């Protein structure tokens, strides 16, 4: 009898240990998932934003074809509940939405999770004719808030990144009224200097006299190609590597298509401070390369 009781006791203890371990493991994974979600990290197996190329002028977002005519444009508002600048941009977003409704221009809201974040977008006054998840864009947003003008085929014509200044707000309202006028509007550095386009470069420089500097991180750069000699130096490595790797006899052309204007401005300043001839390029005409051939800029 005593032996039977002892067996029962051992079984009960074992059951408790198993239950407590199961509870511990479940708790760990639940909290891990919450922490990852809070940090914006997708769980393993899901489609990840890092798999996509960054949004840049000339690339196409995978939105439905809007076009009844080539003049049909849409504005994509990329927002996130974690973005304080989105709150600051709320009056502009509201004004843009109203202006777009008057003009018959489509607004697409792009949110990290459209099911959960749609109510948040509504609190900002941003209402879209349709709403998509970020991953549905097929390209990675460079930050938030990001306002992207796309043409009828989904090609990015221009984008505005970060909390808009009063000048940018004015420009955006005009862009909603006359989107087709925006296409050839040159971006400018903070210093006021206009950025080069690839056609400007072609007209003024031979391939031997320039090196294109791409500031993206290595995984994002992978697959990017240029018609000119190019080198990939991530932005945070530029100040360390420029003197070692760039040829001072050449003009260094920073590809600003893939980075915010302020970042581009800093990169140009950094190189000029080190004695290089540096210019900014807005429309690189870069495209996807099936193999990850890296161009050597030297």
């Amino acid at each position: 009898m005593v032996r039977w009781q002892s067996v029962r006791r051992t079984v009960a203890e074992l059951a408790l240990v198993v239950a407590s371990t199961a509870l511990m493991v479940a708790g760990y994974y639940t909290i891990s998932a919450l922490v990852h979600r809070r940090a914006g990290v997708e769980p393993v197996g899901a489609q990840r934003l890092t798999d996509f190329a960054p949004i840049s002028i000339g690339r196409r977002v995978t939105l439905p074809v809007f076009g009844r005519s080539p003049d049909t444009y849409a504005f994509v508002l990329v927002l996130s509940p974690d973005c304080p600048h989105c709150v600051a941009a709320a009056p502009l977003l509201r004004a843009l939405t109203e202006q777009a409704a008057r003009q018959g221009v489509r607004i697409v809201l792009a949110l990290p999770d459209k099911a959960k974040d749609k109510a948040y977008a509504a609190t900002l006054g941003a209402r879209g004719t349709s709403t998509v998840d970020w991953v549905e864009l097929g390209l990675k947003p460079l930050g938030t808030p990001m306002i992207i003008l796309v043409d009828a085929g989904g090609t990015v014509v221009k984008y505005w990144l970060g909390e808009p200044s009063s000048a940018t707000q004015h420009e955006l309202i005009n862009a909603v009224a006359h989107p087709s006028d925006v296409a050839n509007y040159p971006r400018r550095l903070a210093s006021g200097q206009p950025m080069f386009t690839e056609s400007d470069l072609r007209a003024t420089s031979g391939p031997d006299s320039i090196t294109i500097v791409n500031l993206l991180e290595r995984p994002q750069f992978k697959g990017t190609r240029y018609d000119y000699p190019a080198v990939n130096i991530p932005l945070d490595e530029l100040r360390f590597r420029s003197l070692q790797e760039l040829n001072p006899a050449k003009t260094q052309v920073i590809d600003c298509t893939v980075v915010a204007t302020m970042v581009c401005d800093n990169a140009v300043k950094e190189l000029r401070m080190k004695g290089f001839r540096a210019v900014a390029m807005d429309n690189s005409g870069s495209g996807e390369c099936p193999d990850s051939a890296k161009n050597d800029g030297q």
Partner: protein
Amino acid sequence: MSCSGLQVIGLCALLNLFSSLSSAAQGDALARYPPETLRKEATTVVLPMYPRSMLSLNKGGLVVVSVIVAPDGHVQSVQDLDSCDAAALDSVRSAVSRWQFTAIPRTSPFRDARRTTKLLFLFRLTDGRPTVVDLVAAEIESRGGKLTAASLEGGH
């Protein structure tokens, strides 16, 4: 089984749960530092050796690694980002894993945070003489900044 035995097991289960919750919450605390900022906090620095295999080929190049530093200042991991040569990468890994950084004070709210940054090393032959340049340190010094530790030659 006595009632107190059951209570002990239950308490252990709860403690386990809380410790796992806390480790899950803290495990991802990784603070990204600009290279100069964390490099200035290095207290022990060992420079990589120039690999013989590269010397015999008259070869130079760049190695970029991402380093993760534990809260107590020791190097937890060295990850390859870009390397010109496998032997150069091994040399960098071996040297950098011996670096020490200042520990985060126990009173800091970030005492459990791990820190990460990039380190860049240039393997260069100047007039046939091999040199390994710590590019981040060189940049700090060129701007008049001060380093906590002097670099020790030869990591092996």
